[in-house]
């Protein structure tokens, strides 16, 4: 019973770790380049989830000041940091997608195994 209670309390850590490992497995094993990019996106989502969930203060409300009342607010710093992190993730995804378009134009395929085979028989 205590096991279930402690799992429910720490569900954010378990979810972040599980998503990170799923993303890492996708990047390392699938040979399609688009699936590798999606795997990196899943890894980034897991780390953003972890970072934002650290800032929770139990009993707090969203950090917008309404005058006159004294309240407990959650920590707003992680949310602001992750906003920057999301922009970085979007730019990496945009750049890698344009590289995939160029790779498809020159090699004709977006499968990593086929590209390595084409390179191997050329050199």
């Amino acid at each position, binding site marked *: 019973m205590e096991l279930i209670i402690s799992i429910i309390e720490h569900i954010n850590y378990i979810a972040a770790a599980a998503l990170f490992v799923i993303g890492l497995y996708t990047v390392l094993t699938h040979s399609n380049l688009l699936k590798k990019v999606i795997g990196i996106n899943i890894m980034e989502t897991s780390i953003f989830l972890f970072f934002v969930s650290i800032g929770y203060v139990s009993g707090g409300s969203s950090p917008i000041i309404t005058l006159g009342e004294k309240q407990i607010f959650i920590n707003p710093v*992680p949310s602001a940091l992750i906003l920057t992190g999301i922009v970085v993730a979007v730019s990496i995804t945009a*750049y890698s997608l344009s*590289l995939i378009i160029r*790779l498809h134009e020159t090699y004709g395929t977006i499968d990593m195994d086929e590209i390595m085979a084409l390179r191997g028989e050329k050199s």
Partner: protein
Amino acid sequence: MSSVHFPVYILLILLTTAVTIPLISNRFKNSLKEYIMAAFVVSWVLSFTTLNHVMKNGSYTYSFGNWSQKIGIQFLVDEFSSFMTLIILTVAFLVIIYSLKDMEHEIKDYQFSSYYTLIFLLLFSMIGLTVTNDMFNMYVFMEILSITSCGIISIKHKKDNFLASMRYLILSAIGSLSVLLGIALLYMVTGQLNMFEVSSVISQTWQSYPTNILVSLGFMVSGLAIKAAVFPLHIWLPDAHSSAPTPSSALLSGLVVKVYIFTVAKILFRIIGVEIVAALGIPTYLTYFAALGMIMGSVFAIGQKDIKRMLAYSSVAQIGYIFMGLGLATVQGFSAALFHIVSHALLKTALFLSAGSIIYQKDKRDLRDLNGIGYEMPITMMVFTIAAFGMIGIPGINGFMSKIYLSLAVIDVKKYVYLVIILVSSFLNAMYYLPIIIAAFLKESKDRKNIMVMDKLPRSMIYPMVIVALGCILMGFFPQLIMNVIDKAVPSFLLLGK
């Protein structure tokens, strides 16, 4: 006459130049090169003045917006960061002068201005990563650096470049995400992001959270090891550095991988502190992987046929040297590592620039075609010979001095196995550099007689190569010039906050 704002001015000048280059190249096509040169000269002068100021008056911190240390972003301008900023700007200046003529035959005309935008953003993020004192700021600069360094590889539209750049981008993204996870774990324990604050909190409370700090260090060091090409995680480096255009290879091999090593040193020695790191046993693991890299990098380089690929594998071996100095965790080891960072930047730049000149004039990259080339291109092959002798460790050139300092540091901690490994690695270095020099000067080429003529290179390509080679020889005969600055920089780095 110097002001506290000069480091920020350097960063702002580089950023403004990077952003306004597309506008200028649309209106005033002919003055692009003068504009780039002017921006470089101004930032170099500012950086030199900052170094003089810091060497006389000591280090200072610069808080953005005058916020206190607990909530604002801070830059730490001490001897280490101002010295490394000057080295970065000097080497980049010489490589950019070389690239003004060399890039015309590697990329198309309309991409010329985009290439220089990427180079200036790369320098902006490298200098920012050296001076920053805030953990999340470090992550943001790392991401800018990784995207722009992939950009200067893939700007040449060939098959190999796209594949090498894609592999570098994916591995680099995994590395950055590991670093972000490490930062999150440290933020969970301490609640601060400033490096001084985190270090003071950890030195008081690390007994209560040993697992948390160990896991966070593990993620951060392995993420940065992917990006700095330590031995088992170096697989992106040969493709990326050999297929890139020559100025990009020189910048990547000489400067970009080194800046990630500074970040590892900052995390291990400034945030966590030497005693805790030694108690957790991390430096021993670093020296194991460094020793492995020194041997295996050279072993892989012996069997290569393409000149740039061989130089890329040689980089892997030299990064092993630097990590060995870092992993000894003493003042002498760290000083030897810093000296080798500076000397390897100069040597590898000279090697790549001379290899690029051979490709520019003769269009040959294969090592077996280089017979008798010393008579057609004497200046280039002299530069290559000086740099290759420096890599092997022949006295008179700065490579020899850095091997001496590293051996003295290893003897000081009484680990004689590593001394043997350093000697074996120098011997392996000789095995793949000497055949090129012998073939260039002593063998007969197939289609011409061995008569000495001058190189047919533009002057803007010859002068930087010669200046870098002269710098190597100068540093070899007078190493005190650099060691004086390093001796002041290292103790303040290792014992900060105590």
